[in-house]
């Protein structure tokens, strides 16, 4: 088992980071009822871990007996019937799903499936609290329409159902939904927290982990706890015993993007842009989310840029990222950003060096 799973805290008591949130949640549950919750924060911060621990706190160990289903739902969409395939993870007490998987049909998932689930009362079984819980992941990826459909459901069926929403960015959740929830922000753990966790893991595994290396891993993973632990394990696979100046393992796609950034900076020409397009396609096709690509690419470019240009480039990155959200074919926007960058950078080089 990967360490990241092996040492995942299962209960609110064992949580190592976000202890305060954990305590608050525990108190909340202790009162017997709870409001709708909205967890938001960057990935790898511990949202999901907290949610699972919370469910266990609510319903006891039976919340962990889950089954996974991947089934098609027949949904009435206006006049026609459509079929939506969804993966659900459910226990006796809760159902977890990711409505944004349905793409642009997510509205129907919310209107039909979630409503259906929400309006049925749970059986009166021991350990039951009189309501069941729906965990919805990635609500920020839901379309606006779907989010609007959600808000009515949240009110109407609140007697029998609690929603726990989970997302990366609260700003992409409409205000109406946010105001119906208790918002809980889960920050990225601080670097010290991460180092602590890494040290803890190393100790459990009987490894000697130089603190410098732990620090570098924490830094490298951008305060993403999950990535840090995975990275630690990758380093272990690569080389053990650890040395303080050991190279931190980068993932395949990170290396790839670094190469991409190098390409862009070395040459600005249609030919290069054409090659870059191929590489972008390669990333996208292999399921790297376009936002991640853009962000990471910008990071890499920033490292190589003259400070004069940084502001402008950031502006354009934000600009194209926004476009990308509105659009559908991510490659067009990524390419447009790269083209814009090349154009700016080339001009800059010529102006500066002739």
């Amino acid at each position, binding site marked *: *088992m*990967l360490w990241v799973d*092996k040492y995942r805290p299962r209960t609110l008591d064992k949580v190592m980071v976000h202890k305060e949130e954990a305590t608050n949640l525990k108190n909340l549950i202790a009162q017997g009822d709870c409001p709708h919750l909205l967890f938001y924060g960057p*990935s*790898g911060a511990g949202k*999901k871990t907290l949610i699972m621990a919370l469910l266990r706190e609510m319903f006891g160990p039976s919340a*962990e*007996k*889950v*089954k*996974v*289903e*991947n*089934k*098609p739902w*027949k949904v009435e969409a206006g006049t026609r019937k459509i079929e939506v*395939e969804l*993966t659900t*993870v*459910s*226990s006796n007490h809760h159902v977890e799903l*990711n409505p944004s998987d349905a793409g642009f049909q997510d509205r129907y998932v919310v209107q039909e499936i979630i409503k*259906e689930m929400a309006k*049925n009362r749970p*059986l009166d079984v021991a350990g039951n609290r009189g309501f069941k819980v729906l965990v919805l*992941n990635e609500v920020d990826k839901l379309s606006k329409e779907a989010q609007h459909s959600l808000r009515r459901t949240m009110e109407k069926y609140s007697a029998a159902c609690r929603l726990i929403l989970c997302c990366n960015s609260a700003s992409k959740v409409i205000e109406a939904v946010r105001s119906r929830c208790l918002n809980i922000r889960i920050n990225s753990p601080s670097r010290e927290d991460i180092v602590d966790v890494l040290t803890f893991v190393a100790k459990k595994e009987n490894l000697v982990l130089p603190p410098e290396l732990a620090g570098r891993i924490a830094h490298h993973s951008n305060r*993403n706890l*999950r*990535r840090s632990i*995975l990275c630690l394990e*990758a380093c272990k*696979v690569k080389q053990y015993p650890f040395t303080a100046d050991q190279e931190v393992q980068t993932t*395949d796609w990170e290396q*790839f993007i670094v190469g991409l950034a190098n390409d862009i900076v070395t040459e600005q*020409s*249609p*030919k290069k*842009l054409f090659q870059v397009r191929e590489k972008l*396609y*390669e990333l996208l*096709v292999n*399921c*790297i*989310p376009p936002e991640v690509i853009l962000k990471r690419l910008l990071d890499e470019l920033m490292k190589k840029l003259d400070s004069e240009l940084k502001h402008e480039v950031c502006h354009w990155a934000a600009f*194209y990222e926004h*476009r*990308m959200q509105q*659009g*559908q074919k991510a*490659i*067009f*926007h990524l*390419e*447009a950003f790269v*083209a*814009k960058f*090349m*154009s700016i950078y080339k*001009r800059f080089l*010529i102006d500066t060096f002739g």
Partner: protein
Amino acid sequence: MASGDIRKWFMKQPAKAAAAPAAATSTPDGKKEEGANGTDRYKSTSKFFSGASPAEKVKDEGKAKPGAASSKRIKEAVNLDSDDDEFEKPLPKRARNVGKGSEDESDVGKGRGKGRGESNAKGTQDMDIDASPAKAPAAGRGRGRGRGDSSAKGTQDMDVDASPAKGGGRGRGRGRGKGDAPVASASTEDDPEPSPKKPAAQAAPKPAPAGRGRGGGGGGGRGGGFNFGAREAPPHKGEKEVPEGAEDALAGLTFVISGTLDSLEREEAEHLIKCHGGRITGSVSKKTDYLLADEDVGGRKSQKAKELGVKFLTEDGLFDMIRKTKRKQSAAPPPPPVKAEPVKAINVVKTPNPKTNDDVKGKAKIENGNSSFVNNGKAHAAESESWPHKHRPQSMDEIIGNQSIVKQVQDWLLQWEKHHGNAAKGKKGNSSSQQKKAVLLSGNPGMGKTTTARLVCQLLGYEALEVNASDSRGKSDSNVKTGMGGKTSNTIKEMISNKSLAFDGGKSDRKTVLIMDEVDGMSGGDRGGVADLIASIKSSHIPIICICNDKYSQKLKSLINYCLPLPFRKPTKQQMAKRLQQIAKKEGLEIEEIALEELSERVNGDMRMALNQLQYMSLRSRTLKYTDVRARLMASAKDEDVTPFSAVDKLLGFDGGRLRMDERMDAAMSDMDLVPLLIQENYLNYCPSKCGRDDSGTARMDAIARTALSIAEGDIVNVQIRRFRQWQHAQMGAFMTSIIPAAYMHGRREVLVQGERNFNRFGGWLGKNSTFGKKTRLLEDVHVHLLASRICEPTREAVRLDYLPLLSMHLTQPLHNLPKDEAVQQVVDVLEEYSLDQEDMETIVDIATLKGGEGLLEGVPAATKTALTKAYKQRLGDRRVRSADLLPVLSLPGSKKVTKKPARMNFMPADDGENLDSLEDSAEAEGEEEGDAEEDEDLEAKALALLTESRPGMTLTLDPAKTKAAGAGRGRGGGGGRGRGRGKDSSQPKTPKATPAAKRKK
């Protein structure tokens, strides 16, 4: 003066511009008289031209296709003209005018033929030539083309107004000012001002100003084939002024272009040469006059040219040649920027623009114009028959191209009786193998398929019965015997089966052939038509000729097995032009050969359309030139179907900037889905001609950035259109995704990747998107399995970004580093822990390897892989059930029985009952679909067994419908490890388990 002389004279002229002065001065008086009302001499002459003299001349023409009688008049006219000419001649004066910016250059007509002798003699100058009635072919006088170039405007409004290229057609003495700026002008809206930067040929109207008295003609054509390699941009692109010369300055000369020219793109050079009447071919031959090359690259062309002694010509040399044809205006600045009104060359003969300021004269002209027009009209009235019909080939020789096919049809028909007729009855066995009973002629419309069929039948004495799409061709009734009448198909059936009619009567020379025309048009009403036709062929006692356009049509798939396929090919343009010329002669048309070749090329091998076009054009004028044809075809071209590729070629092509907005819109909207994708795929390959000379490449990079932005915005518009059904934005979408990018980027295409062909690629997005879809599904499988392992709950994104790299490491590293057994053990442990199966392993290794990364399983010995498979299978047998197993197990191919009797251990709260019910329904539906299952019941039994042993407390769901297993999307079918193969990869390794990595390396 013979035409040759004239030419010489003119050629020399620029050099000795002053040479003529003597003549010029000689008649100043006459001139004055004529130009009575003009104080200014120049003006007076011009008036004269536009008015009086033309009038007279026209009369001549109109009258008698100038017989001898008219000669006098002509003479007169000529004289008048000559006077004018002389008058005008003093170059200096003119130059001055020009300098003022008023006007332009000369005009000249071209005359060929003897009729003109005198005038020439007088000669003087080009003017007389103008005088020659261009249009009067009959006169034998040549084809003059007076095309003055207009350009300008200013002082002499009148000329300009009068302009309609009539000059061209009518050749009237109007020389000078009459602007015709014929050619390109129509399309130049885009850049009205020829900026010096831009290659003038493109931007400026190509005036071809002077008509020149020189034997014209000459076949032309556009030869130069495509070139696939990248060509360098001309080193001095746009830096030279492109000269304007007489329209047929280069007439009769054949050029070959080689290598990179100094300042012109090859397309520009071709256009320039063609517009001056020259001909361009792709390779050097004896007929080649010049090899146009600025650098001796030592390629094949130049080598051959040296062998054949072809003259080399540099770009400057070419310019000189062209320039020589018009009066040199040394003082004059670059071509008069004012483009006056672009005159379309189409209306060559149509009434002149009545806006002359000299009313009387103008009127006269109009009258004349009309009269000639009327004449033409009358001539045509008699021949109402359409040309394609009238000139249908009457003998085999007249069929253009495809002679071998015609021959084959003939042979086939000749042999038919031998093989299939009564005589052949005895040896029926081998007959069918040797020869098919029917032929299938296929090819684009207008190539003469039907004509061939008819002609062959006729020649061989067969009677042809033709059945085409206008007849109902459904399946014949069973009661064929009821006789003729009723359905056509019944008739056919009867005919083919009626021996007495066909062959017994053969002696009485009544032989029949059935021509089934347009067989690919059978549809709708013609139910069972093709099948019936096949049946007919099988039982037929007479030959059958089937004709279709598209032999690959789905409908004809079965038919083609019973026929001898004979595909018609496009005749070459030379072949077509030759035949067209014959026909034109018969009809009394005078057409430049180069024009006919252009026509042939444009109609894409469709002779019928070529003739129709020709007939139509002949209504307007009896003389047609390259420019007329071109303009005509350009105008009609947009009504044709455009493929996405041709639309993109058009938009991004060299002339992209000259298209009208509605033309662009048409092109962009021709396929709203594909055109934007093609443009997006290819725009990087174009060197925008807008950027001109761009050493640093910044201009191009800027253009690319803007283009990319526009395309990206177009994507947003597209979302609105599709997702929210806002179709009113369709035009805007087309604008953003196609037109703006094309406007920025149109230009010359270059190759970015070595060895790539210089054609537009198909949009890559579609393919990538589908690969993306596939990988996403696979990843989702992995994701679901991970969830099912219940030890982690990552989102899909986290699976890809964080888990996969490490998992792939865990799955492959040991195989490289550890001894076989230990490694296998470890890997299988990991797999089991995370509920992954071997397919997931493939997926992980695949997705986690980005191009450029090393194949993770590369170098793993085959033995290890085999061992892994073995170990995995063994585990599968004796270990406890994994929760993830339940997902796939239920969709085992053999599980169809299970669907009927679902073993459900469902712990879902009862309140979900409704869902379950509906699920049951769908289960049944699903059950049928899963029918592909040939696997045994053992698997089913095993699945159930596994279930029963499963750990207590585990939640199981055995409803096949619900568990439409993660992998549903993947097609199942191959022999997968657990009976759930995946059909997706076409190249299933022979030992699927053993070499999971074999596929990886693509």
